[in-house]
């Protein structure tokens, strides 16, 4: 589906965990949705927490699956094609049976489609659940990985597919991403036109910000920083941004009020105006963002 240049798809990511992605995503969504129809997608599927702050009326609920091989004994000729073709050692012949290790399977379908006797079909296995809520002008999609399921990336992809197909036309879309700078974070920023990296000005924060910035650069996406708890630590994060021409969209100072509201599961926006200057700056930036179509 072609995406109109008027649609802003913004990923909110961080590198280090606990820097304030959920805080920013949920409050920014509340702030922007006063003026524009907004979509918030929680793609931190291992630990999705946005729903603790954003209520809404449940619209639909969808079980998400990945496909894993299922062996049919009667059709099998024990030719070993399946195990020879699997690079992940997820399907093996043990004596007179074929054993599948679900957690190793990447769902490439090679074993099934290359089986000469049709003895391997792909069967669905639940990996999580996606729920869609509406509250006022805000549409909210929440995806949650099954406990014990190792791979977050397939669920992130499925969630983004759903977003593209069903809610792709909302003018402002915020994607709350998983922490880190490797495959789950990359998957979550895949559809974004612009990335906001939330960072804190501490040595851990700067180190992980630099990692996340390198990843986003490699993906060729424009990005900017928001500095959370900006009055703690030191100036090296801001210096780094200035030297590297990374725009700092806003700074959110440490505040006991923010911590308290967050700890209770309340939005800061609407309950206390301490975040408002930062939220309004970021919202304006997003609305005025000129994206290359």
């Amino acid at each position, binding site marked *: 589906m072609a995406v109109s240049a008027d649609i802003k798809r913004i990923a909110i990511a961080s*590198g*280090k*965990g*606990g*820097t304030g992605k*959920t805080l920013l995503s949920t409050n920014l969504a509340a702030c922007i949705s006063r003026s524009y129809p907004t979509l918030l997608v929680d793609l931190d599927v*291992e*630990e999705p*927490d946005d729903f*603790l*702050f954003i209520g809404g009326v449940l619209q639909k609920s969808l079980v998400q699956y990945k496909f894993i091989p299922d062996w049919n004994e009667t059709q099998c000729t024990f030719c070993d094609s399946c195990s020879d*073709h699997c*690079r*992940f050692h997820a399907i093996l012949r043990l004596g007179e049976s074929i054993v599948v290790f679900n957690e190793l399977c*990447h*769902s*490439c*379908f*090679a074993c099934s*489609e*290359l089986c000469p006797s049709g003895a391997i079909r792909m069967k669905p296995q639940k990996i999580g659940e996606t729920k869609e809520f509406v509250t006022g002008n805000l549409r909210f999609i929440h995806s949650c*990985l099954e*406990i*014990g*399921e*190792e*791979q*977050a*990336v397939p669920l992130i992809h499925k969630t983004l597919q759903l977003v593209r197909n069903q809610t792709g036309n909302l003018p402002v879309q915020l994607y709350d991403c*998983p*922490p*880190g*700078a*490797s*495959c*789950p974070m*990359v998957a979550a920023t895949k559809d974004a036109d612009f990335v906001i990296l939330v960072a804190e000005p*501490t*040595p*851990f924060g700067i*180190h*992980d910000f630099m*990692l996340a910035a*390198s*990843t986003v650069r*490699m*993906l060729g996406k424009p990005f900017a920083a928001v500095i959370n708890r900006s009055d*703690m*630590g*030191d100036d090296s994060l801001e210096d780094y941004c200035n030297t590297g021409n990374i725009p700092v969209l806003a700074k959110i100072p440490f505040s*006991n009020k923010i*911590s*308290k509201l*967050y*700890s*209770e*599961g309340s939005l800061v926006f609407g309950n206390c105006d301490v975040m408002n200057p930062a939220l309004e700056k970021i919202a304006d930036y997003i609305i005025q963002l000129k994206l290359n179509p």
Partner: protein
Amino acid sequence: MNEIVILSGKGGTGKTSIAAALASLAGNEVVIADCDVDASNMHLLLQPDFHFSEDFYSGHLARIHPEKCMKCGLCIMKCRFEAIILTGDDYMIDPVSCEGCGYCQMICPLQAISMEERLSGKFYISRTRINNVLVHASLDIAAGNSGKLVAKVKSEARKIAVSEHIPFIIVDGPPGIGCPVISSLAGATFVLIITEPTVSGIHDLERLIPLIRHFRARMACIINKSDINISKTKEIHDYLKQQNILHIADIPYDSLFMESMVKGLTITETGSPLSGQLVNIWTTIKEFLKN
């Protein structure tokens, strides 16, 4: 040998700061394994010497040889990961999307695709400034397979602990509950959970505990920044009691954690009143592991 795996579910609860403090108390009684290979921070506090380093190869990456490719499009049709892209006239592999399954190579009628080993990070063994052994790693930008790198870090840490008769391994784990966490948990006997009294801290804790139970590891919990919301802290106490999980300590919020981090020190090296509490925590853990 006892392995102490430090996990939290939620990021930013203080895993690394507390792991580093315990490491500085334990000195050469521990090998430290930094298993947050995606965004490792332990080296920032412990200043390791990186005396051994090795490239880490894991998985494969497809490569299309344009001189052999007739652009039949079969690979694009079969790839489930949208990893083959048409750039102008040429078929190319998108290294970020390629899972390395090799299906395209198997079915290419002209053998125009080969599979190559994938360099996905670096692996290190170090001596830290406080004389612990630190096993650590760094995953390459946007790389996958962090679970395998975690497994490598853990297995090397175990080898060193066994060969040098070091009684404890402290594993600083990643956030979340997915593949690198599961890899950090493999073979673990004891998990130290660091949580915080916020709704998200509690929610993520409630998702982490069943995962730990699945691995049949024993566990204990520390509530960090316990005074930012006393009633949530109380809620966690009740939950831990109900789950029959040992509650070791409440650590109040202290800006010294951050100030010591800026100086490259662990909290126990700053003369903070919390030092005494961390000494008690380390003693409690050792007692717990004896039984």
